[in-house]
Structures are given as structure tokens and as C-alpha cells.
């Protein structure tokens, strides 16, 4: 299976588009056939659809890559699909508002909240689906785990296209308002590990500056305020390889963490030592 086939060529693709034709190769169908073995398939399709797909694909070859591929340091896969997705994605697509009931992080419940659904978001770290939505009162983008949503009711009529577009831009503005940035320097002694360090930050929006004279790389990281904890865990993960140079909150937290961690070790070392 060569991923660089002629049929995937960009000129051919745009010419097919002009002619209103669409070509699906056996490569893609074999991939799909193998993916249908995943437990998520039985949730993602209605039984009739799944049966149709299995019948359409019955003569396709299956790809047997699992036996050659090992996953390491993966998070447990909590879910790939969630039963609410079908309903929620259609509400997003059609510009419908919702009434939702859900549980907050601290265990409190919220009943029948008016919500404008903006996007569905899957966290590759938590391996779970979230709904990003706008509440009528607060004009703030909320993020709720689908697992914590107990009831969803779609309003009978969709919002007008203008209103739906306005809500979507409000949500976008809300997200933009929560954006912060920090600058992280790669300690030049670790430039040999640059590729690893850059990979570790490649899941963020960022810019990289290179100072040829000092042979130093500075990564400017853009993230949302509510992602601070995740950024911090990445920084601690990389340890001495990087240093925050701009971003008071991160700097203060890193200093505090180092002090607290050392205090923990010191306390238990003292405890264990017979001399007190």
C-alpha cells in the first residue's frame, strides 16, 4: 500500500472536482474495513448502516498492521465515540440551540441550561469527548465532558443563519480572550534533543525563534488559560531541558513546584534517617 499513488495526485483531484466525480480507492476501503473492527464502530453507526458497510466492504482486503505496531506510553482509551455525538454534531451543523443538564467538576448538577453548541472536542490526553458551548447568560465558552451530560434537548427551530454565525463568532472571541502566551527557551546544552523537545510542544500553537549567534531556540507558546496545568506538566516532563523566560504565572509555579518537591524529599529523608 503506497500512500503516494497517482490517484491521490493533486491535479487529478482538482480535475475530478471540476467534473463532479469522486474516486474512492481500495486503500481507503481496506483502511475503513480494519477500523470497523474497533468497538467504537458499533456505537458510531446505527445497526443498519453498519451492516450495509460490512456488506459493501466484504470483498476488500483487510490491513493487518496491528501485529507490526506497538503502542508505548499511551493513555488508556476511555472512548473514541460517545453516543451523544450524533445528536450534538447535527445540532452544531444545523445551528440549533440546546437545553442541557450536566454535572460540574465538583459534583454539583445543573439542570436545563440553555446552551449554544460550538464544537465537539476530543482530548488526545484524556481520551474523552467534550462539548464546547456558549451559555446564554455568561457569554463564556464552557467545556463539558460528554460523560457528564445527563440530558440534551434540541430546540424545535434552528437559529437564523445570521444568529448562529454571530454565536459562533462570539464563541471564537471567547476562546481568543482566554488565550495567553509564554516563551520557553531550550537550554543550548540540550540542543541535541531539540527534535524531541519540539515534538513535545508540537501539539500547541507556537512560533519558534532561532538565535544563530547564541545557538538558542525560543519557543513562543500560545495556549488557553485553562490549559495552564497541562503546559506545566509538559514543562516538568522536559525538566532541565527548557526554561520559561516569559510568563510570570508559569515561572512562579515552576519555582513553587521545585521548592515543594525538594521539601517533600527532604522531609522523608529526615524521617528515615535515625539521626533525625
Amino acid at each position: 500500500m503506497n500512500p503516494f499513488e497517482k490517484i491521490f495526485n493533486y491535479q487529478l483531484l482538482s480535475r475530478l472536482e471540476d467534473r463532479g466525480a469522486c474516486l474512492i480507492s481500495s486503500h481507503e476501503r481496506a483502511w475503513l474495513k480494519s477500523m470497523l473492527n474497533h468497538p467504537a464502530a458499533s456505537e458510531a453507526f446505527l445497526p443498519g448502516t453498519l451492516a450495509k458497510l460490512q456488506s459493501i466492504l466484504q470483498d476488500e482486503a483487510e490491513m493487518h498492521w496491528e501485529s507490526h505496531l506497538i503502542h508505548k506510553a499511551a493513555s488508556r482509551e476511555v472512548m473514541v465515540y460517545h453516543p451523544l455525538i450524533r445528536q450534538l454534531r447535527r445540532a452544531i451543523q444545523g445551528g440549533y440551540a440546546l437545553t442541557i443538564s450536566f454535572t460540574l467538576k465538583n459534583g454539583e448538577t445543573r439542570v436545563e441550561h440553555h446552551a449554544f453548541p460550538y464544537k465537539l472536542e476530543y482530548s488526545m490526553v484524556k481520551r474523552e469527548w467534550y462539548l464546547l458551548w456558549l451559555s446564554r447568560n455568561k457569554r463564556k465558552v464552557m467545556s463539558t465532558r460528554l460523560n457528564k451530560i445527563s440530558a440534551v434537548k434540541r430546540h424545535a427551530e434552528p437559529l437564523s443563519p445570521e444568529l448562529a454565525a454571530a454565536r459562533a463568532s462570539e464563541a471564537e472571541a471567547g476562546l481568543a480572550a482566554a488565550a495567553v502566551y509564554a516563551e520557553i527557551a531550550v537550554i543550548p546544552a540540550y540542543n541535541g534533543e531539540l527534535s524531541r523537545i519540539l515534538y513535545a510542544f508540537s501539539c500547541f500553537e507556537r512560533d519558534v525563534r532561532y538565535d544563530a549567534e547564541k545557538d538558542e531556540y525560543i519557543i513562543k507558546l500560545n495556549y488557553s488559560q485553562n490549559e495552564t496545568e497541562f503546559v506545566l506538566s509538559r514543562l516538568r516532563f522536559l525538566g532541565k531541558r527548557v526554561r520559561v523566560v516569559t510568563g510570570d504565572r508559569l515561572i512562579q509555579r515552576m519555582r513553587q513546584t521545585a521548592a515543594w518537591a525538594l521539601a517533600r524529599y527532604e522531609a522523608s529523608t529526615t524521617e528515615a534517617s535515625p539521626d533525625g
Partner: protein
Amino acid sequence: MAQESFDKEIQFLRMLALTGSAYNRQQYAQRLGISIHTFDKMMKRLKTIAGTTGPRNSRSAEGGRDMTEMVRYSYLDSSDPLLLFLFRAKSLKDSESERLSILIAAMGENSLTAMELLDAASESMPAELPLPDEKTIRGDLKYLESVGAIIKEPGPRPYRYRLWRGFAEALDYDELLDLYDFTDMMANTQLPSIQGYLLRDNLGRLLQGAGADGALLYKYHYYSRILDEAHLFNVFRAIEKRRRVSFLYFSPKRDISYTSQNTNPLYEKEAAVKRQTVLPLKVVYDHQYGRWYLLAWCGKQGIKKFRLEGVTGLQEEDAVSPAFMEEKLQLLELRIRDSWLLDTGRKVLVRAKFFKPGPGIPDFVKERVQHQGGWGVITEESIEDFIYEIEVNGILEIKPWLRSFGSSCEVLEPGQLRDELIQEWKELADYYESF
């Protein structure tokens, strides 16, 4: 047919995706081991492709943007994988792409014979392009059938061919939308993904853009990983056929990641990377960094690890016996069974105490340990803390994960790991002391 190699483009796009605008043309060319002239040519070609196929609903699709802008990761635009266009880069003559598109469109409407298709192509070919002959059409049909794009209908000669339209024929709009979403989710969350992204694009076309509204987003996604899938299928095929492979390896620690294969004496010196031949056994995907590794048997050197991104000029070589392959596979599995990532070193017991966040706060520490802690187990637990134990090959690879918990984790055993972490926290405290 010789396979067109995209090694240079892959290395460049990866560099661009990781470092953004950090380097100038000269620095890029130098790191790629190619001349500025070659670099400019490659850039021009990639821009054309990205401009033609680039993300449909993206701000970066506006014309005239430079490559850095095009490849820059923007979360809200991330529903279309930016680097997928690389897989659309296979070169094709104008006449060929025109002819194929005419044939495919014609077979989408009716089942046709080779001669009818020849007529259709001769009629619709633009005047400036050469007219096809029967042999060419038969060659096209053979190729399209081999990639499953068309089907030869049962029946007597002359054979009739039609486009494969299984999804469009059998599924209604709602079902297609479910299929689009499923494909999107699997391409984003499972491996490998290229064929999934290509399929998703095509399903989006069947839905006439209605599915591709970017309603589903994937956070903390290592989007540049799809570049490494370029070699993946060749490696898989070699493993299946028990064949050795040879390649030029550029360790990510080197300053250059590619060298031109030409004979320009200016670059001869840098081309002194030796071709090595190995028996591929397994491919490993490291979820912590989103990186791919090739584990291979290298004769006297035993099992070696290669970053897949450093592999260029991959070629299949001779085959080994099933018994030999099986023996090496078993050896490998034994060695890396207890590796956090790839360490094949001595097994050690790591014991760590994790501190809970405190009364009334959801226990995110324990949740994360259970979620990411692999085969390790929680052996003791109190209101304030719990003990986690894991037997793992070496301490090097698990250390970053333990450190990422900050002061919520105290390593108890082994002493060496504990001492190293104390030392590292001291140094980190020094980093931030002056602020």
C-alpha cells in the same frame, strides 16, 4: 515501477512544522544538505500543491501566503490536516491527469468499454494535449482496477468498466455523515491514519462539503506524525515479506537531516552517511512525544532502534527464513515487554508515592496515574496519598513522566532515581531563583 521518493520534502515539511519560521532559506538548505537552488525549486513545487489542495475551510488557504504560514498549526483550523497535501505530491503529466479525470467521470455515469472510453477521452481532451491511443486507455484501466477505483463488470468481451460508487449508492445523507464522522475520529485517534484522511476528504466531497464543517476538533494532537507514515507501509510490507531493508539514517541529533543524492562535489562530503541494512521487526509509536521508531535486527549489533523520521532512501533487500524472523521477533518482544518506551536494559522496580490534591478536590492525580501508568499498580492507599509500583526496563524513560507530576510525586525506589530527581529539582529551583 520505481517509487518516487519524497524524502527531501518530508524532511523539510517536518522541519517547517516543528520550527516554523525559525530558519531562513540558507539555514534550511544547509540543514537539509541541499543547495539553495534545489531548496527554492522544492519550495515552489510544494507551494503549488498546497495552494491547490490546501485546507478548504482554512484561513491559511488564502493565496500568496508563504509556506510557513500554510503549515503553521492553528487549532481552530486543524480539522483539515495541513500536511496531508504531501501525499498528493506524486508527479503526473498534465495529459495523464486530464485523461484519467475524463475516464473516471465517464465511468461514474455509465459502465463503458475501453473503446467507448477511448472515444470519450478523444472527444473531451483539450486541444493542446495529445490524444490517447487504445493501449494507453487499456493501461489506465488496468491501473485504476488495480487500485480498486473501478470494477470490471461480469459478462462477455468487450469488458465494461464502471466507477466504484459503493458508498454513494448504498448510503443516504445521514448515513454518509455518520461515516464521515467515524472516519474523521478514527483517522485522528488511531494509527495509521493517511488512508483515513484521504477517505475523509472524499466523503466530504460526497457530502458536498456539508460534513467538513470542522465541528469535531482534536486537542493535543501530534499532527506532524502523518509525515512519518510515509515510510510506514513500506516497512510493514518488508516485515510481512520477512525482507531486510536498507536506508540512509540521519539521527535526529545530527545537524542535517537529508542529503541530495546528486553528484555535486560541493555536497559530496556531507553525503558520507553510510547505507545500512537491517531486518525490520516492529514499529513503535511513542504517544508521549508522537514519534515513530523502527526496531530492527542488525546482526552483530543485536536489536537497534531507529527514529523513523531519520530514515531516508528506504529499499527492500533479501528475505530471511521464517524461523530466523520468528526467533528475532520473540527476542524483541521479550526485551521490550517491560520497556516504558524502548529501553531494553535491566529490569528495576520503581516505587513512588503520589500525593492527593486534598479534601474536597477531585483526585486528578490518581485519575492520571491510572490513566497513563501502564501496567503499574497502586499497592497502598490512604486519605492523603498512595503508592504506585511498576517493574520497568531502566529508569531513564519513565523519569519524565514521574517528574511531570511535580511535587505530587515522590520517588521512593530505586535510590538512584530518587537521587537524580532531587538533583534535578535543585537545578530547576536554580533556573527560577533569579526571577
